[in-house]
């Protein structure tokens, strides 16, 4: 009983009035977001010409950002749903933060195809509804699959995030006073923790986890088919789906470390997110890094053994052409540096992990860029070749996406419980005997 009280107090103390550092960080991220939106406004007013994308590279950093952010979202679902089904106890230390990350990353990801459209206001052409135009979307197009996959993923993630929080919201209405208590009371739906409520709740949570688990595999497969369904050299391979899914979990796991390490320090949650828990996440990082590296090896091997000159040239160009510095940075960040995680001492070194996770984020962003741009820059006909450099507007909007993500996350830290109080009570009950 006293222990449960202590857990509540300690976790919710993370939500006390924020200090100057928090406000500075929020102001900085918010400003970056607003500047990004100003750049978008400029693009909307002037036209897509202000972006660097043109023939032949019509997909540039906007689509890179889209794929990157969808990927980031994935490990949130992996941690909350897949590890729930596998009954991995360490999940409790991360799941709330990871689910929040999923929702925010998907919100950012969803913006980029709209930005990329140029004429954003006609986005509804992609939605199936009976219209005056009497035509329907082409359901054989991967872009329409994407619309369905991403919007479903966002909906299911939001439900999962919210449902996981209902018992915690009920705790918060008791712990706070005034208007905040009222808000949490409404959000908690009048939850009382009765027999019937728990019974249905547990069933619902299991179903949601079971529905979200196949999404981990399918959403990024569908994103990868945006590329793999085309006949472009360097894109048109069957390995793309599993390769993208592994990359998504890899980058998302790195982002979880990037977010959780400072959060645990600043909010003094070291007791609940221990080094052991972080080491478990580091193992997922290492494992997915190895899968990604394997895909990096298989791709050119397929090209060489396939004896298709265009395919071989695509991979030669990727490694030694105009974008080779980015390619080798990507190999360094995604394949070589994570190998250090084989050493237990480094896996348990929080500072090292944090720096490594930042580098993996960079590496995974570059991976998307390299795949998208280098293939488009050199397709079949030399007459149609060209190189691409992002314009200032594209860089601004990209940074704005990061600004939005981190602002949303900072606001989350002070408005909702960053750890699942209910699950931590349950976990600590199962592991220790009562002394109270």
């Amino acid at each position, binding site marked *: 009983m006293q222990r449960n009280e202590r857990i509540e107090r300690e976790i919710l103390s993370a939500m006390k009035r924020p200090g100057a550092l928090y406000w500075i960080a929020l102001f900085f991220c918010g400003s970056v977001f607003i500047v990004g939106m100003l750049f978008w406004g400029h693009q909307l007013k002037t036209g897509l010409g202000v972006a660097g994308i043109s023939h032949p590279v019509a997909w540039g950093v906007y689509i890179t950002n889209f794929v990157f952010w969808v990927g980031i979202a994935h490990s949130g679902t992996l941690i909350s749903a897949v590890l729930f089904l596998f009954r991995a106890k360490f999940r409790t230390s991360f799941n709330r933060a990871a689910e929040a990350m999923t929702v925010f990353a998907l919100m950012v990801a969803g913006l980029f195809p709209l930005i990329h459209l140029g004429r954003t206001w006609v986005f509804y052409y992609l939605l199936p509804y009976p219209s005056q135009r009497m035509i329907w979307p082409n359901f054989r197009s991967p872009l329409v699959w994407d619309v369905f996959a991403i919007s479903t993923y966002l909906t299911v993630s939001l*439900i999962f995030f919210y449902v996981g929080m209902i018992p915690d919201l009920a705790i918060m209405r008791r712990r706070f006073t005034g208007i905040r208590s009222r808000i949490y009371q409404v959000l908690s739906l009048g939850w009382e923790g009765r027999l019937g409520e728990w019974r249905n709740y547990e069933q619902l949570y299991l179903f949601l986890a079971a529905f979200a688990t196949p999404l981990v595999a399918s959403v990024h497969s569908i994103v990868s088919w945006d590329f793999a369904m085309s006949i472009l050299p360097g894109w048109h391979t069957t390995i793309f789906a599993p390769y993208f899914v592994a990359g998504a979990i890899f980058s998302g796991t790195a982002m979880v470390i990037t977010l959780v390490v400072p959060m645990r320090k600043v909010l003094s949650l070291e007791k609940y997110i221990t080094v052991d828990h972080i080491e478990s996440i580091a193992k997922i990082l290492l494992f997915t890094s190895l899968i990604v590296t394997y895909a990096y090896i298989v791709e050119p091997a397929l090209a060489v053994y396939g004896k298709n000159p265009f395919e071989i040239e695509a991979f030669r160009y990727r490694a030694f052409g105009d974008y080779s510095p980015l390619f080798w940075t990507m190999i360094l960040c995604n394949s070589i540096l994570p190998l250090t995680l084989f050493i237990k001492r480094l896996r348990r070194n929080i500072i090292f992990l944090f720096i490594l996770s930042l580098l993996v984020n960079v590496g995974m962003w570059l991976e998307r860029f390299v795949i998208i741009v280098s293939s488009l820059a050199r397709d079949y006909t030399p007459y149609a070749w060209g190189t691409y450099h992002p314009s200032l507007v594209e860089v601004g909007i990209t940074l704005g996406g990061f600004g939005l993500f981190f602002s949303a996350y900072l606001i989350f830290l002070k408005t909702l419980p960053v750890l699942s109080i209910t699950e931590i009570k349950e976990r600590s009950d199962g592991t220790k005997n009562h002394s109270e």
Partner: protein
Amino acid sequence: MAQKIILNNREDFVRKLKDLINGGVPADKIDAQYPYPVHEVEKILGRRPGPVRYFTLIGAVTGFAAGFGLTIYTVLSWPMITGGKPLISIPPFLLIAYILTILFGSVAAFAGFLFVSILPKIGRLFAPLPEAGNRFIITIREGNQ
């Protein structure tokens, strides 16, 4: 009058429940309130899984049918061959059906949960609540209540 037993930890709660059932109190007279899921409860009270699963199943099946229904209906209402593929192309349509299975299944599960648990309870949304906090409360209803 209902009888209320208040306990402070999980072990006592589970033991008390077992004692009550072994002592001949019918399971349907027992209600409880507890701060986090206790998996033994269902076993002790011998209850079968609740009806949320039926909502989920109906939602998922509807989603699957809606996916195929939407794609096949729309492609037939404007029959245009693209990419040399048959009008009714099962593999890509299967993807839409698969996604809608998950979407409708999850939404139906959530809606079913709210419906079966009678949430949100309007009365409890605004009135001050009698709090259980971290205690385990067993309520035994008597007579025909």
